[in-house]
Every structure is written in C-alpha cells, then in structure tokens.
C-alpha cells in the first residue's frame, strides 16, 4: 500500500467512526426517552451543551492550553537554528505556514502538535528527542506533526471528545435519576415492553464505554493517517521509520502532568498502562514501523 491509498483508507475509517459516535448519541437519547419517559427530553440538550462548552473552550485555546499543561516553552529561530531549518524544510514540502515552536525540558524523546488551524499551529519537542535523533529522523517526526496540522486532527479529536463527553455526562445524569425519583415516571408509563426497558438500561450503562472505545479508535486512525501524510510530505519513509525505532527502543516516558492530553504525543506516554489495544490512543509502534517499511520496499 502506498501513502495515497493509506491516506484515503484512514480518512474513510475516521468518517465511519465519527458516524458511529453520532449513532451512539442517538441510541442513548432514545434509551433515555424509553426508560424515563418525557421528563428526560430536556436532559439531552443540557448534556450536549455542557460537553460542547468544555471541549470547544479548550479547542479554541488549544495552543495556549497545551503549553501550560505540558510545561512547554516557546522558542525563537535564534535559539535553535538547526531545528527551525528542519521545520522550514517541511513547511516547504507541505505548503503549510510556519508553526510556533516549543521545547519541553524532558529527557524522554517525544513530540506533539496542536492548535485549532494552520495559522494557530504549535509543534513541540522534548529536549530528549532533539538530542537522540539525527537529521532524517527529526525530519520524519516534524513531518508527522505537521501532518496532524494538515489533517486538522485537533478538530477531529475535539469532535470525538465532545460526543464522548456528552454521552458520559448523559449516562451519568440518567444513572443518578434511576435512584432519585426516576421511578415515579416509570410507574406512570407502565405499559412499556420489558425487553425494550432492559435493552435501554443496558445501552445507558454500556454507552460511555463504547464512546471511549470509539474515541480511542479514531485517535489510532489519525495516527496512522499522520504517518502516511508525513511520507507524502518528505517522500522518505525511512526517516520516520528509524525515528519510530528510536522511540520504540527508548523506555523512558514523558513526565505527564495530565492524561487528558496523552493522545497528542507522537509516542503515547501511557503505553503499557493501557488495559488493551482497544483503549490505547496510538496503534502499536511496531505496527507503524511495519507499515512504513512496506512503503520503503515499494521504492
């Protein structure tokens, strides 16, 4: 598979997963209505509203917020001309504007990109990655981060986080209602089919879990897409491949202040902690290396 078919396949899968999210919200709303009756009609817009405000607030301030959360410091061209040279190379290859650049003082090699659009983009590197990698490897990492910017992954993950958040809030509110007074309403609409009622209850309990799984799946697809787009920029899969090998060989992880931004790093800082592949935000690094190797062998 070359990078163009990779890109197309990943985009298709992201759309499918986002549609899955939509169906899930609809299912939860439906279950709420059957289980609790008309009194819950107002709850759906409230939950969606809360999720929208919290997630989109952070989406608009993504570049500034993430700086505070990771402790990254903005740097100027004079601070690291070599790094700026490398980033300029990738901006020329991608046709994107020059992003802001930041450095995190941390010996674990890692990097991330954020910002709501191309003009508010920020890419950050740990001091560890700048020390550990050579020119071609760093170029691959930069291309991967710029690919996230080009593919508007901050937007995609904000959409995913909003729906997952809304579902979590919704099912939380409804579970509480079951204990406090929800019963009365149920008595009044007693003519409901018991199978439908049980099914609704199951949906309400399982929905947050399903939403989390979908969110992680979307994140994994965006990582694969960024790898493919990075190759489209540099036409050099070997650089990113050997960069990922360096990351795979290194066992140190970034000293995270918050798990909520784990998905933005090029290598997940939560690796090993996650329960299974289904919950992780990144595809297994060996899998990513193999895909890039396959692209190399085409040349």
């Amino acid at each position, binding site marked *: 598979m*070359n*990078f*163009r078919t990779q890109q197309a396949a990943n985009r298709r899968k992201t759309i499918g997963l986002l549609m899955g999210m939509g169906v899930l919200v609809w299912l939860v709303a439906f279950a709420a209505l059957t289980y609790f009756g008309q009194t819950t009609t107002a709850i759906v817009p409230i939950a969606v509203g809360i999720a929208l405000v919290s997630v989109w607030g952070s989406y608009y301030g993504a570049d500034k917020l993430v700086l505070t959360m990771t402790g990254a410091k903005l740097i100027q061209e004079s601070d690291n001309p*070599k790094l700026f*040279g*490398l980033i*300029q*190379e*990738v901006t*020329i*290859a*991608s*046709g994107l504007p020059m992003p802001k650049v930041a450095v995190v003082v941390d010996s674990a090699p890692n990097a991330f990109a954020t910002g709501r659009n191309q003009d508010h983009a920020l890419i950050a590197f740990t001091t560890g990655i700048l020390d550990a990698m050579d*020119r071609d490897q760093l*170029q691959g990492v930069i291309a991967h981060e710029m690919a996230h910017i080009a593919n508007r992954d901050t937007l995609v993950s904000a959409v995913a986080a909003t729906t997952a958040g809304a579902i979590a809030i919704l099912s939380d509110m409804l579970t509480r209602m079951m204990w406090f007074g929800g019963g009365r309403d149920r008595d009044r609409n007693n003519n409901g089919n018991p199978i439908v009622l049980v099914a609704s209850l199951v949906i309400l309990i399982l929905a947050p879990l399903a939403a989390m799984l979908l969110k992680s799946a979307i994140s994994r697809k965006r990582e694969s897409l960024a790898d493919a787009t990075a*190759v489209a920029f*540099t*036409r*050099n*899969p*070997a650089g990113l491949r050997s960069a990922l090998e360096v990351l795979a060989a290194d066992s140190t992880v970034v000293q995270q202040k918050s798990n909520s931004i784990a998905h933005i790093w090029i290598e997940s800082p939560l690796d090993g902690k996650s329960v299974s592949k289904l919950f992780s935000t990144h595809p297994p690094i060996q899998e990513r290396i193999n895909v890039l190797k396959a*692209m*190399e062998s*085409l*040349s």
Partner: protein
Amino acid sequence: MTTTLIVLGVIALAILFFVAQYNRLIRLNISVNEAWAQIEVQLKRRADLIPNLVETVKGYAKHEQSTFDAVVAARAKATSATTVADTAAADGMVTQALRGLLAVAEAYPDLKASTNFLSLQEELSTTENKVAFSRQFYNDNVRSLNTAVKTVPTNFFAGFAKVTEREFYEVEDPQDRKAPNVKF
C-alpha cells in the same frame, strides 16, 4: 410561471458550475506560480551561500582550483537562468559541483573541524533539502494543474481562463537523494 422558474434555476446552476470550474483553474495556476516563486527563493538562498563556502574551503585547501571553478561556473549559470528547463539544468549542475566541493573537504581534517565550516555545512544541507522540497511541491502543483487542464469538465474552461499546461521541473541527477522513494 413554474417553467420560467425552472429555466432561471437551471441558468443559475449553470453559472455557478461555470464559476466553480473557472476559479478552480485559476487557483491551480496561482499555486503553480507560488510554488515556482518558492523554488526561486531557495535557489537564491543557496547561491548566496556559495561564495562564503568557497572562501572557507579555500582557506584550508588551496590546491583544489578546478573544484572551485566548477562551483563558481555552475553558480553563474544558475543565477542567469530564467526558463524552467534552464533553471532545472543549472540547479542540477550546482548540486553536483557542491557535492564535489564537500568531497574535497573530506580530505582536510582541519577544515572539517572548523566551526565556521560546520555551520556552513549545516546551512547548506538544510538549503539543499529546501530546494528539493520546493521542487517536489512545484511538481505536485504542476501535476494537479495539468490534470485539470486535460480532464473533463475543467478542460472546457482552460482556454477561457487562459490557463495552459505547465512544465515539470526535472533535474538530471543520477545520485539525487530525493528521487521519489514511493511509487504512485
């Protein structure tokens, strides 16, 4: 009454379609021009680096006059080129000549250790990459434009928009590191 509305609607749709095709061609053409400007910027930056680099190498390696001459000649040709084909040919020559110069430098340990040379070398490699990437970006844009000029429906509007096929930027260099690694 209804027939008039339908006719008007069809005309409005046709105009919208026409505008969209026309604008697409113009946009593609502008992208190619911008990509070309980027190539020129990067080639100029490389040309500006050369005198300094040659002087630095000369300070340590006085007896390599033929190499220096080759670099200076290639640079002169590159700065005077105007057409796409000429610029591309001169670009290839400069890349070759610079490679020769760096190979000469390998034989002089003092030169290789000097900080001035090291920073020039770093600047040269990033500039070489920028040249290569701007070339790649230009060719990608030319490919989109040429496809639009040749395929339905945009091909019907190409004449009206005064947009024609553009020339690819092809550098003759058997050793080119940036030869496409990936097949399309």
